[in-house]
């Protein structure tokens, strides 16, 4: 398709809950640098090939300055997680970004995640117990997928998990690009900001054994630490990121594995495949949401196409993950695939800070479900699964299961 004749709407409409839209393969083959129209009506450039997405996400010329005056607005009123004022408080690039990343990243090392694993297993076991007590069928999303990551991130940050319904709403208004109006989004973010501000004040008076307390006691910028506003926004960002993404991925992973019984049985027979099965679920997720937007403040070339200064680029990691030139039998879910250099966590200096946490949570959920509920099965056919609409992060509204 020629870029000027047909302009695709993005996100590409897709009714199938687990399968990719037909357009992906066509775009990768014939139009890897495609013009699209966003929900706001603004134009952007969509990338779908593995090599392009991988390079662009790791290239600092493709900035995260989505609040630039000529950057495309993603949602109709220009709100949302990528373009708010909040996005400018955490350093965007270079040494300052790396400094921030390393201050916070120490909390997300593989070693720390391994140390947290027994506690995560206990949380998952308790949630499964509760679901079983309520009786089949149950909603795996509400029973396990959502509460587990919320409990874990709240514990890390030192935030009361009892307030999770409020976070859930606040994070939804940040991540949803179409559902809420500007006034509602701003009111919710104001409440969220005030909540975190009060929490930081309380922790400064009485530090606990958690990430926020440690960032506070490390001192301000003059001591190599973060400013108060940076600590506050870091807390908000981690709560949102640690909340909705993994929660949705748990439901999608289990749905994909149960959609073909042989996948589930293979894992029952050989639980040592859990690690590679989690990676393949991340790669195979065709409902991963918006992708990652980037803004160009200088003319640049991608795949032989010149992109002018001011272009907003959208990287579809999910489309790139299905690229046959990067993955053999990309359309097949292969639970033993290794290596699996999927782009679901991005690539380069900005790749997901919490990826070791997400991986550990997904592995724990799978391990506990295989052990405790080996007879787990979908309570509705795949066609009955519905996507959550409008979220920057894709998910399923419900994951009905029985056992």
């Amino acid at each position, binding site marked *: 398709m020629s870029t000027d004749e047909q302009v695709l709407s993005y996100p590409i409409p897709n009714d199938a809950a687990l399968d990719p839209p037909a357009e992906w393969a066509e775009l990768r083959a014939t139009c890897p640098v495609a013009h699209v129209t966003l929900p706001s009506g603004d134009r952007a450039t969509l990338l779908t090939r593995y090599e392009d997405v991988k390079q662009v996400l790791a290239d600092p010329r493709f900035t995260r300055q989505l609040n630039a005056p000529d950057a495309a607005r993603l949602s109709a009123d220009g709100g949302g997680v990528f373009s708010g004022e909040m996005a400018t408080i955490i350093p965007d690039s270079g040494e300052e970004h790396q400094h921030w990343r390393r201050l916070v990243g120490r909390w997300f090392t593989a*070693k720390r995640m391994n140390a947290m694993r027994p506690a995560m297993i206990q949380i998952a076991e308790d949630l499964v117990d509760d679901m079983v007590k309520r009786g089949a069928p149950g909603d795996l999303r509400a029973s396990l997928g959502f509460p587990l990551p919320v409990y874990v991130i709240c514990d890390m940050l030192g935030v009361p998990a009892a307030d999770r319904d409020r976070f859930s709403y606040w994070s939804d208004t940040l991540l949803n690009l179409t559902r809420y109006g500007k006034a509602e989004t701003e009111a919710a973010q104001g409440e969220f900001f005030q909540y975190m501000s009060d929490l930081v004040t309380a922790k400064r008076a009485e530090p606990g054994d958690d990430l926020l307390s440690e960032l506070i006691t490390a001192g301000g910028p003059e001591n190599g630490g973060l400013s108060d506003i940076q600590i506050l926004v870091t807390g908000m960002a981690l709560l949102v990121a640690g909340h909705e993404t993994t929660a949705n991925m748990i439901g999608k992973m289990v749905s994909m594995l149960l959609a073909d019984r042989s996948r589930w049985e293979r894992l029952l027979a050989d639980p040592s495949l859990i690690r590679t099965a989690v990676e393949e679920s991340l790669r195979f997720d065709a409902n991963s949401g918006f992708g990652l937007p980037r803004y160009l403040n200088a003319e640049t070339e991608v795949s032989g196409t010149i992109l002018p200064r001011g272009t907003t680029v959208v990287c579809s990691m999910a489309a790139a993950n299905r690229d046959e030139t990067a993955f053999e039998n990309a359309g097949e879910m292969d639970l033993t695939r290794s290596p699996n250099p999927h782009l679901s*966590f991005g690539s*380069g200096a900005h790749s997901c800070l919490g990826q070791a946490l997400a991986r550990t949570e997904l592995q724990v959920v799978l391990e506990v479900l295989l052990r405790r509920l080996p007879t787990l099965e979908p309570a509705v056919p795949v066609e009955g699964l519905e996507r959550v609409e409008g979220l920057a992060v894709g998910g399923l509204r419900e994951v009905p299961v029985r056992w």
Partner: protein
Amino acid sequence: MTPDHRGSIGKEDMDMKVVVDEARCCGAGQCVLIAPEVFDQRDEDGVVVLLEPEPAEDRHDAVREAAAVCPAAAIQVDEDA
């Protein structure tokens, strides 16, 4: 299995040298999850620590996988060493 049946004759006999780029490292932790005998992360900032620059043969597969999936491309593996 005799060497004649191998797809890559003699590859297993080669030495492997691993180099990590601390400045590029983004602390994703994939290398530690995949090859914990060869890689670690510093407690203070999550940056990669190379425990075994010349890993034993039984770790070569894991090291290759860790290098292939590193999101920051911060692990170089030299097998012609």
